[in-house]
């Protein structure tokens, strides 16, 4: 069946802000679907408030709505746009859930909208356990014995029948939320009750445990004519029991025989046919390690994290093809985009291995448990490509960017106690794989490690090969060992994925020496292509990786040099982590597009994050799916002989490499490669806080009092003289790692120790910390002579909250014209003094009408897409232009702001992190962000919060107020008064209630968590959904031991609010503006306007 011509306009639902379980992979799938539809001249309407994504760029869809993805907004947009169909498979669980609700509420029927692709009945089948079990039985694919229950009483009865251990799952959630293996009744009661509360359909599932089985995944594609194929199969190194999102995954499967592989393959085809999926699905299996028994764990009837991985692993554009299938095409009608000649209905053949490792950031959260299990906790992932398992494994570990040099050769403190080590192997944490290394080194047998970890022995043997090489390298001596020995072991080590730095560390010498020797011994990596067909067909793909298991390049570099091909390399952003997410991929991609616009022959990207658009098949001219390390980037630079390299698009990883190049300067100079944009020494001047502070002094620009941190005593002396609080800021870090505010000498001492541990390479600075100050940012582009100020952005909260966790507004809402002017002047001075060529981000503090500069980054920033989209000027396009030597067009100077407000708000994942305390500090803890435009500030704010899934009770309800300390209590009185006046019912904890009562505001007193049993208790009220919003403002200062119960109680309130999905406000300024906004928004109609409509109101759009 060819294209369905009756589809003229299609609605695409995005996935919203990035959170654990739902990350950047949906930018890849969303962008591909928009491209696929556009090619067919189908008008596209996208709803997604994730302003940092590429899919929400104004030219990818015909209309993009930066609005919350929920039924309320989607219906309004449908009413306005009247699309013919809707695509639900490209926006993760969010889109799927909203799709089901739209159907249930009769909205699809009312507006005559078809669901394109997989029918909604199929989606329901995969989401409702009973329907699912029935469908699987019909497909002759067993599922685990299970039963869905809707009450605790029922649950208890089922648990009695099944016995422990058993698995508990929560219906309609993502990332395995609330799921877990339960070992006893006590655990069971807690988890079951919580699960029932969290489930959208008030349902939990109890099932037989298959813990320790092999976990295997198949990505299956099917069209409306019943053609189907397997795109990829994957094997989890971690057994069933660890969420696949938190597992190390290898493609293709490694330990399966043909019989097993085909058994699961055939089952996959039966399943997809029986379900009637049109497009793509992911099927997860548990396979018994010593028999042919298997169970279907789950089916994701949509594009997923696994499908994004499969797509990058095979080079097959799954989302693009799934979109084509949704609009009527069949597989045989479509071509393989990679080869351009072969069919899209085929199974990719791999002549390489692919490995994914999740990236966790658990240490960023307070109170969170580092153990990993059936609930996903990772925030990003990396993918490595190579030709031996050891090679991909070690590459991937380095890609994590957590300071590890590979499987071994790291600075991790080993676990001394053998029993403790065994305990960790059995109860894995985010460091599990390094514990396996320790166990191997300590001589635990492969059998023992398998029994403890259930990691298949094949993987353990391979890992042991790495340990064996380490031993040999350790025995090598730079001077004593023969050249032959060195050459031999270096070659082995490189084949098994050792980096120069890792070898150097083991041998106790400098990595430069290894590189020099390696060159002398002719040990080089080679460039290979991913062509989906294992070289069986000629294919000139752009998709490349490097390996030491080769003797020839797939690329004719000599020919390219002869033909004088003009090349620019852009360094990508690497793994998503807290502090660096999809926004830096947005910058990389827009930089690539900017370069192509300027006529560069080859815009080349280096990146290794499978969840990105920058690693898509059609974004760059060459994609090196490779490490962003000094060694590997240099390898590529030496081969490519490019005209320039851009380090300022990909964020901190890319930017830090500029400094690494100086380490390799001899080699780097020989490549003849220029760093495009701001000069390296200038970058250093901005990044090194001491140097930068000196520059500000010279320019006469105010800054908080500072001192370079020489030693502990001097630092404490400085703190005494400027007065507490003070802030410790290490250089060269993003997202405030090890950044701390100290309110007294005691905490300052502790902070100093931590800062030294995180970054000992670069200087550390101590500054006076301002309380009650406004924080302002400025993003822009400078061409060395002219400065384009993208926007002055004001934080809603006072300074002290990390800029990634703050809510911010364009244009500024509280600061005066004269202050804005002053900020602009300072920006001019700094950017010109630094001779910036490219993007920059400067952060300011405003207190008592004085402007202070806190930092300046000479790279793309987190707020760059937000600023670009709000202003209608693509800052990264401009950045690419100035870095290529162009000047900023005059007409862009002094452009007026649009007559609307843009709000950026953080997206938190506390709900997905059991026990994590949702408090904010100078260290960042949000996992994503959203951005909303609206006509006025109050509407934009409320919509923005709604887009982060904080549903503010506009029309009244019950508000729980609990505030720490006398001063804060006084400040909260007027807010409570206002809520009262608007008809809210106030609930409060004892002390807060007393203060409110004294001021004539009646509040229902709730007993605290530790007063369990006394009613009305906070626990009961939160559990019974009697509260609609929580305002809990903790004291910022350190509290003595005696207040521990209070602290614990406060934490419990916040945590339970998170668990029960209630909006919880923990910042006074935010509470103030939210309450004001409620008052105003109540009286106003909801504005539904697309980004494009806002842009149409601008004088100039530069995109």
């Amino acid at each position, binding site marked *: 069946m060819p294209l369905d011509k009756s589809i003229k306009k299609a609605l695409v639902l995005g996935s919203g802000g990035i959170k654990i379980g739902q990350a950047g992979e949906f930018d890849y799938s969303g962008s591909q679907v928009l491209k696929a539809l556009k090619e067919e001249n189908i008008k596209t309407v996208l709803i997604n408030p994730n302003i940092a994504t590429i899919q929400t760029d104004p030219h990818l869809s015909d209309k993009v709505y930066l609005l919350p993805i929920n039924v309320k907004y989607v219906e309004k947009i449908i009413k306005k746009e009247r699309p013919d169909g809707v695509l639900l498979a490209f926006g993760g669980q969010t889109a799927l859930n909203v799709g089901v609700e739209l159907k249930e509420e009769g909205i699809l029927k009312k507006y005559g909208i078809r669901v394109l692709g997989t029918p909604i009945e199929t989606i329901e089948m995969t989401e409702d356990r009973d329907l699912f079990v029935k469908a699987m039985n019909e497909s002759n694919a067993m599922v685990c014995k299970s039963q869905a229950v809707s009450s605790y009483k029922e649950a208890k009865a089922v648990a009695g029948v099944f016995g422990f251990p058993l698995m508990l799952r929560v219906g309609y959630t993502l990332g395995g939320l609330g799921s877990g293996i339960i070992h006893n009744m006590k655990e069971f009661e807690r988890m079951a009750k919580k699960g029932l509360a969290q489930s959208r359909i008030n349902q939990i599932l109890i099932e037989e445990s298959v813990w320790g089985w092999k976990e295997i995944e198949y990505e299956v594609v099917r069209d409306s*004519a019943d053609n189907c194929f397997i795109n990829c199969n994957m094997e989890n190194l971690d057994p069933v029991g660890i969420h696949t999102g938190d597992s190390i995954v290898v493609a293709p499967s490694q330990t399966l025989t*043909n019989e097993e592989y085909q058994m699961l393959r055939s089952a996959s085809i039966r399943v997809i046919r029986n379900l009637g999926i049109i497009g793509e699905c992911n099927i997860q299996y548990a396979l018994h390690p010593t028999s042919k028994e298997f169970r279907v764990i789950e089916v994701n009837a949509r594009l997923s994290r696994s499908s994004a991985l499969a797509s990058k692993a095979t080079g097959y554009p799954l989302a693009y093809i799934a979109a084509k299938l949704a609009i009527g095409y069949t597989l045989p009608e479509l071509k393989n985009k990679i080869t351009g000649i072969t069919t899209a209905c085929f199974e990719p053949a791999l002549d390489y291995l692919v490995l994914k490792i999740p990236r966790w950031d658990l240490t960023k959260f307070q109170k969170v448990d580092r153990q990993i299990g059936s609930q996903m906790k990772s925030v990003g992932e990396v993918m490595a490509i190579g030709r031996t398992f050891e090679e991909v494994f070690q590459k991937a570990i380095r890609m994590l960017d957590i300071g590890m040099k590979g499987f071994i050769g790291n600075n991790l403190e080993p676990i001394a106690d053998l029993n403790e080590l065994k305990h960790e192997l059995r109860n894995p944490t985010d460091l599990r794989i390094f514990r396996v290394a320790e166990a191997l080194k300590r001589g635990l047998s492969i059998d023992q490690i398998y029994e403890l970890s259930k990691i*298949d022995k094949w993987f353990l043997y391979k890992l042991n090969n790495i340990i064996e090489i380490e031993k040999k390298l350790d025995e090598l001596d730079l001077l004593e060992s023969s050249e032959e020995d060195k050459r031999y072991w270096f070659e082995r080590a490189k084949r098994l994925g050792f980096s120069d730095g890792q070898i150097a560390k083991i041998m106790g010498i400098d990595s430069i020496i290894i590189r020099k020797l390696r060159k002398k011994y002719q040990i080089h990596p080679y460039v290979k292509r991913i062509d989906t067909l294992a070289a*069986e067909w000629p294919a000139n793909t752009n998709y490349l990786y490097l390996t030491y298991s080769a003797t020839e390049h797939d690329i004719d570099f000599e020919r390219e040099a002869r033909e004088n091909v003009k090349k620019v390399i852009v360094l990508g952003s690497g793994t998503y982590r807290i502090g660096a997410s999809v926004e830096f991929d947005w910058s990389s991609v827009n930089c690539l597009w900017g370069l192509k616009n300027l006529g560069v022959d080859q815009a080349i990207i280096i990146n290794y994050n499978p969840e990105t658009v920058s690693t898509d098949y059609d974004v760059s001219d060459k994609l090196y799916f490779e490490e962003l390390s000094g060694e590997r980037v240099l390898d590529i630079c030496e081969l490519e002989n490019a005209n320039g390299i851009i380090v300022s698009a990909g964020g901190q990883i890319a930017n830090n490499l500029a400094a690494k190049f100086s380490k390799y300067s001899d080699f780097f100079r020989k490549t003849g490669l220029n760093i495009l944009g701001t000069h390296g020494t200038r970058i250093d001047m901005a990044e090194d806080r001491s140097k930068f502070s000196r520059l500000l002094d010279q320019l006469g620009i105010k800054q908080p009092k500072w001192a370079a941190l020489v030693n502990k005593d001097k630092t404490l002396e400085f703190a005494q003289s400027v007065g507490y609080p003070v802030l410790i800021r290490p250089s060269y870090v993003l997202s405030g790692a090890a950044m701390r505010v100290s309110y007294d000498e005691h905490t300052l001492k502790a902070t100093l120790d931590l800062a030294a541990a995180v970054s000992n390479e670069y200087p550390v600075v101590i500054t006076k910390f301002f309380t009650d100050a406004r924080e302002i940012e400025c993003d822009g582009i400078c061409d060395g002579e002219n400065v384009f100020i993208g926007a002055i952005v004001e934080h809603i909260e006072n300074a002290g909250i990390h800029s990634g966790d703050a809510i911010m507004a364009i244009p500024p809402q509280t600061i005066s014209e004269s202050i804005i002017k002053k900020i602009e002047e300072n920006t001019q001075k700094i950017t010109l003094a630094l001779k910036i060529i490219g993007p920059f981000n400067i952060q300011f503090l405003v207190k008592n009408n004085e402007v202070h500069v806190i930092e300046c980054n000479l790279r793309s920033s987190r707020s760059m897409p937000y600023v670009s989209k709000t202003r209608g000027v693509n800052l990264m396009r401009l950045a690419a232009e100035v870095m290529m030597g162009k000047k900023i067009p005059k007409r862009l100077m002094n452009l007026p702001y649009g007559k609307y407000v843009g709000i950026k708000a953080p997206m938190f994942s506390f709900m997905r992190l059991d026990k994590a305390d949702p408090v904010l500090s100078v260290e960042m803890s949000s996992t994503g962000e959203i951005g909303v435009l609206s006509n006025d500030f109050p509407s934009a704010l409320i919509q923005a919060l709604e887009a982060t899934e904080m549903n503010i009770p506009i029309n009244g309800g019950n508000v729980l107020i609990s505030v720490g300390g006398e001063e804060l209590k006084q400040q909260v009185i007027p807010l409570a008064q206002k809520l009262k006046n608007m008809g809210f019912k106030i609930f409060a904890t004892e002390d807060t209630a007393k203060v409110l009562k004294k001021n004539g505001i009646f509040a229902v007193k709730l007993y605290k968590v530790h007063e369990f049993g006394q009613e009305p208790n906070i626990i009961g009220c939160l559990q019974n959904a009697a509260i609609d919003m929580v305002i809990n403002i903790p004291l910022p200062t350190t509290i003595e031991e005696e207040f521990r119960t209070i602290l614990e109680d406060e934490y419990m309130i916040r945590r339970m609010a998170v668990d029960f999905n209630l909006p919880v406000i923990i910042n006074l300024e935010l509470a103030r503006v939210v309450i004001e906004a409620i008052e105003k928004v109540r009286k106003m109609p909801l504005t539904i306007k697309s980004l494009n409509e806002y842009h149409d109101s601008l004088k100039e759009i530069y995109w």
Partner: protein
Amino acid sequence: MVVYKNEKRAVLMLQDGFRYFKGIGFGATRKISGEITFTSIPGSGYVEILTDSTFKDQIVLFTYPSIGACGVPARDHDEYGILRHFESDSIKVKGLIVNEYCQNPSHYESIKTLDEWLVEERVPGIQWIDTREITQIFMEKGSQIGLLEVYENDEKIDIEELKIKVQEITDPRDNNLVKSVSIKNMKIFSPSNPIGKVVIVDLGVKNGLLRTLLHKKIDVVVVPYDYSYEKIIELNPHGIIITNGPGNPLIYDHVITTVKKIIENNIPTMGIGLGHVIIGLAAGMTSYKLTTEHRGGRTTVESATGHCFITFQNHAYCLKDSDKNGFRQYFHDKDDNTNEGLIHESKPLFSVAFNPEGSPGPLDMKNLIFNKFLDIMEV
């Protein structure tokens, strides 16, 4: 370039331009020569590939970089006395080319390593060479003639000597390879309550085919490739299968003659692989050798109705002008449009170039093809 310490040196040299690749030897320590080709089956199917008679006397390169992870299973037999895990009773491949073979396999059914098995069956292997680079040669120029030598530990490689030797190799492609893999004496396999009887003309039958037929409750009689038409008919079969096998179909005149008679007499028959090409030749078509051979588990074929299927394929020869003498094209390769199947308009005859029984590879066509066969046999 590989550096050696205790490893066995090994070289693969092609006749074409004396291109050679140094690697590390494993398996048997010996020198062999022959036709070199490849398979793109993923790492899981090597036991089946190595014992597939279609590869008889060929040196086979695996495009997948890591082979041997599941080790080698025991020689267990099923209720009919057929080897459970192997496609024939021994390794048929003459030599093995891999990026890396696995020294420490892990599978509950494994009893030895790939290396040990190769040593037992005197098959040499070479690893740590750029298999992708060599595959690109196949893609451009087709299968190659060459030699593979695995040296004793202290032996040095003499490239010049090899160059002389490689020139001396005669093209093995037109050898009668079927003769060496075909069964010597008729063999019968009987399931309980059979629904029909099939004679298999063994040009290199895979155990997977026998297992499939027996599973479908068919009495199976395997006969040598040169069994005459008359002797086959004496066995009173409901149908005949001409199997897959090695070598150039043109040289098997005897089988072509047999098939001609089968067609004339309207005997229900199915051809697979080499058997398919032979049916085409018997029907007056011509065959040719593909440059890009079809060897692997991912090949897409399209039926006349426009449906696509993923198949395991292992063939180098192909039919031209398939619409001839009552035959028409049943399937074609979706990518290069070559013929992948024949079906007769009125007679109970069809054939496929791919292996519907998998072993290894996808089983998507298994039911469709074998049910079709049951249909034409009217059992």
